[in-house]
Structures are given as structure tokens and as C-alpha cells.
């Protein structure tokens, strides 16, 4: 175990359960996240950016520091281009609904989450045309297929960086470079990759980066948003919500500058205080170190599952080509049964079903039955993996 902290939290719940559902939300959180949130509530408390008194300024300072930390993690030089929202879904909706217009074509992939597919489906109703480029059966994407789908009316390419079902890493940099060559915008859903894979707005040619705070950034739920690259001007992006921003109060039209243009209403400053603490922890550990740790666990889990008769693993089955999210089925057992028995009999918590991603399951050939998903995180250990393998092995033996 390379992850270090003086008071490292355990991946075991108080009742002894092993938490392997980090792809849904990470748990536990690093030491300091909850403390920062309590500190905000107990001692800072005021509304950020709404008043000029010292408590309000202190609150705004915390939110701004979180903005800087997010910008720094993703290589964005201007923290004011970080727009906070509820989560990654909020960020994706802002980008898609805020930029696409009837007649535009948008290209996406066969591995997307409903956070992308549902807004796109809605936009189709107003005349936005959607092209879905198929992926291989392991979820991987050939960038040239994306390039082949580009038409004169194409305006944007939207894709996830890593699959929430089976961890497959998509070639965002290659796709970003293709988009730049054709003067298109690229929107990347980093829900499953932010904090475990290096991501850089410039190097990866990303125009819009949607992120969530509560997964591998290790912050609390209710934090996330969108980073808006410099190729997009405020006037080009229609906000999802309008309202009070604490700025330009004399005017009844929405401000035309970031982040205020897209951040109406009081921010989740408590959550952002927690996210700031989490990002400081992440910076101390280093994304590469967390990736190495998770890769080692992922390799053990993949090798172990490959040796269990009756277990079918979906996705790349290669820790270099995926995040530490592993999808599988046991022949003869429904995924929901596996999930329930892992929970009740083996104290292992995971997610089963379709994972809000019917497209991805169709690509993987697991639709409509779904699969079992084990999501490893920074605080999981080799012992957690071993225990999961023993449990799956026993279930597979009984099913066989």
C-alpha cells in the first residue's frame, strides 16, 4: 500500500462490510474532508460572494480556493473558467443544452452514460442530430471512426474518459486532436477518470471538461461542474439557470462573464469546503500514485477472476487499458442475486444491473441483463480484493 496518511481511513464499514462501490461514489473520504465541512458550517457559515463582510469574504475565499484547486488539477490556467454545479451530470447538461442548437450535429460513442445520452435524446427533440459511433466489444473506441463521422454540421464531440461500467479508457487526446483539426468542440465526461488518470485541458485538447467531486476526487456529493476552455466565450454558452449571482445587482439580465454567468443561486459552499480538502489530499498523494495503487489491485482482481470457472469478465481485462472498475457475470446466476448474496453472505458491497448506461451494456453484450460491478478505490487493500475473489469463487462453484 503506497497511499499514505497519518490517519488513513479504512475501506471497511463499522459493521465490517468491504466497500467496493467506488465507481458510484468513493468511500471513505480522506481525513479532513468532514472536518473542513464542519469547520465551514460551525465557523465560516456566511454566503460566499453575497456580502462584503469578513465572514462572507472568508466563505468566498474557500470557494475560490476550490476553484483554483480544480483548475490546477486539470491544467486550466484561469480558475474563473471553473463553473461549479451539483455534479458531473449538471456540467454535461450545461455544456450540451447551453451550446447545441437545432441543426447542429453532435458525435458521441457507444459507451456513454445516461448523463450524456438523456440530454442528447432531449436535444434530438428540438432538432439536434446525434451520431453515435460504435465501440468494440471491450468498450474501446477507434478514433478514426469518430473522424469518419464528422460532417459539415457537426459542432461537438462528447465522450467519457473511462466507462462507468467496465472501466475502459477512451482515447480522449486523439479525439480532442481530431476535433481541433476540424474546428469542433470536445466535451469530456471525467466522472470515472478525474483523480485516477492524468487529465490536462491543453495537452488533451479539451474544450469542456465535466467533473464530479464525489467519486475519485474524494470530495462530498453535491459538488462538481464544468471547466470551460478559452475557445468558448460567455455569450456563446446559455446558462441552465438564471438568477442572483452577487454581481451586477443593478441589472436584471444574467452577467456575461464566467463563472457568474453559469452559477446562479447560493453555491454548495459546505460541499466545496470538503472538496477543497479532498483536492489538497489528492495533490499530496499524487494522481499517479493513486493510479499505480489501483492498477495493482485491478490486476490482482482481474487475474483472480480469470481463474474462476464460470466467471465472465467484461471490458478490456487489462489494468493498463481500464480504471479499477471491473464488470463481470457468473454463469447461471443473475447479477442481482450475486449482488445480494455478496452483501448478505460475504459483507461485500457493489453495484449490479445496468449502471445507468444502456448504450454501454449494449456494446458489451450485457444488455438487458446487466452485470456485477466492483469499483475499487484508493483506500481498498489487497485483502479486500482477496476476500472478494474468495466470495465470487464460492458463488461460482455453487452455481456451477
Amino acid at each position, binding site marked *: 500500500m503506497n497511499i499514505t496518511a497519518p490517519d488513513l481511513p479504512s475501506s471497511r464499514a463499522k459493521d465490517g462490510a468491504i466497500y467496493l462501490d467506488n465507481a458510484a461514489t468513493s468511500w471513505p473520504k480522506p481525513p479532513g474532508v468532514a472536518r473542513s465541512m464542519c469547520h465551514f458550517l460551525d465557523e465560516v457559515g456566511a454566503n*460566499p*460572494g*453575497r*456580502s*462584503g*463582510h469578513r465572514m462572507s*469574504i472568508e466563505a*468566498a*475565499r474557500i*470557494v*475560490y480556493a476550490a*476553484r483554483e484547486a480544480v483548475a490546477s488539477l486539470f491544467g486550466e490556467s484561469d*480558475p*474563473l473558467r471553473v463553473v461549479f454545479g451539483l455534479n458531473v451530470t449538471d456540467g454535461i447538461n450545461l455544456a450540451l443544452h447551453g451550446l447545441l442548437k437545432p441543426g447542429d450535429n453532435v458525435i458521441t460513442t457507444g459507451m456513454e452514460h445516461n448523463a450524456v445520452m438523456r440530454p442528447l435524446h432531449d436535444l434530438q427533440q428540438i432538432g439536434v442530430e446525434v451520431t453515435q459511433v460504435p465501440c468494440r466489444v471491450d468498450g474501446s473506441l477507434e478514433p478514426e471512426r469518430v473522424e469518419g463521422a464528422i460532417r459539415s454540421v457537426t459542432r461537438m464531440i462528447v465522450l467519457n474518459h473511462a466507462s462507468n461500467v467496465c472501466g475502459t479508457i477512451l482515447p480522449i487526446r486523439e479525439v480532442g486532436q481530431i476535433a481541433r483539426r476540424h474546428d469542433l468542440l470536445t466535451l469530456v465526461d471525467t466522472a470515472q477518470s478525474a483523480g485516477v488518470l492524468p487529465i490536462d485541458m491543453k495537452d488533451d485538447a479539451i474544450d469542456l471538461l465535466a467533473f464530479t467531486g464525489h467519486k475519485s476526487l474524494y470530495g462530498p456529493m453535491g459538488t462538481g461542474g464544468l471547466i470551460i476552455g478559452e475557445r468558448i466565450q460567455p455569450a456563446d454558452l446559455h446558462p441552465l439557470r438564471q438568477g442572483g*449571482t*452577487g*454581481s*451586477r*445587482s*443593478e441589472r436584471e439580465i444574467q*452577467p456575461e*462573464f464566467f*463563472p*457568474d454567468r453559469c452559477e446562479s443561486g447560493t453555491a454548495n459552499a459546505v460541499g466545496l469546503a470538503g472538496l477543497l480538502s479532498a483536492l489538497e489530499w489528492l495533490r499530496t498523494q499524487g494522481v499517479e500514485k493513486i493510479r499505480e495503487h489501483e492498477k495493482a489491485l485491478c490486476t490482482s482482481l482481474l487475474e483472480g477472476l480469470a481463474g474462476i470457472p464460470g466467471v465472465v469478465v467484461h471490458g478490456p481485462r487489462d489494468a493498463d487499458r481500464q480504471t479499477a472498475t471491473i464488470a463481470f457475470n457468473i454463469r447461471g446466476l443473475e447479477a442481482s442475486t450475486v449482488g445480494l448474496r455478496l452483501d448478505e453472505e460475504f459483507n461485500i458491497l457493489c453495484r449490479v444491473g445496468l449502471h445507468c448506461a444502456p448504450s454501454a451494456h449494449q456494446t458489451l453484450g450485457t444488455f438487458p441483463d446487466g452485470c456485477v460491478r466492483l469499483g475499487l478505490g484508493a483506500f481498498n487493500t489487497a485483502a479486500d480484493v482477496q476476500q472478494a475473489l474468495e466470495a465470487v469463487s464460492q458463488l461460482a462453484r455453487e452455481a456451477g
Partner: protein
Amino acid sequence: MSPACAVVLVDSTSRALRIEKILLSQGMTCKLIPVPRHLSSDCGVCVRILKSEMETIRTVLNEHQLNDLEIEVI
């Protein structure tokens, strides 16, 4: 007698915080305060600076592409 001051008017608290950070890192004196009513009806904050540092600060802000900001003596 307190020193003569000026304020940098900004369009958002986020921007005020960015300016504060830049000025403090360059050893300038500054403080975020509510915008004086006679300068704006906005409910936000501005950055109070020393009048004696006004020109240096203008140069620093220009170097950070913040050259569209009004600075008013108060």
C-alpha cells in the same frame, strides 16, 4: 490619519479574490471591502488598495490581462 486609498472595481467576488491573490503575491497591500455606494449600486465587493501603490498596481494588473478594470480614489 489613515492613508489615502483607492479601490479596484470588479465584476464578481471571484475576480476580486483573483486580484487579491495576485497583489498579495507581489507584496502589495490590499483588502476586500464592500463597494462604496457612491461608486456602484452593486452588492458585491471591491479591492481596496493604497493610493500610493495605484500606478504600480495598474501595471501589475495589466501584466495579468486585467486591464479593463476601473480604479477609483476614495
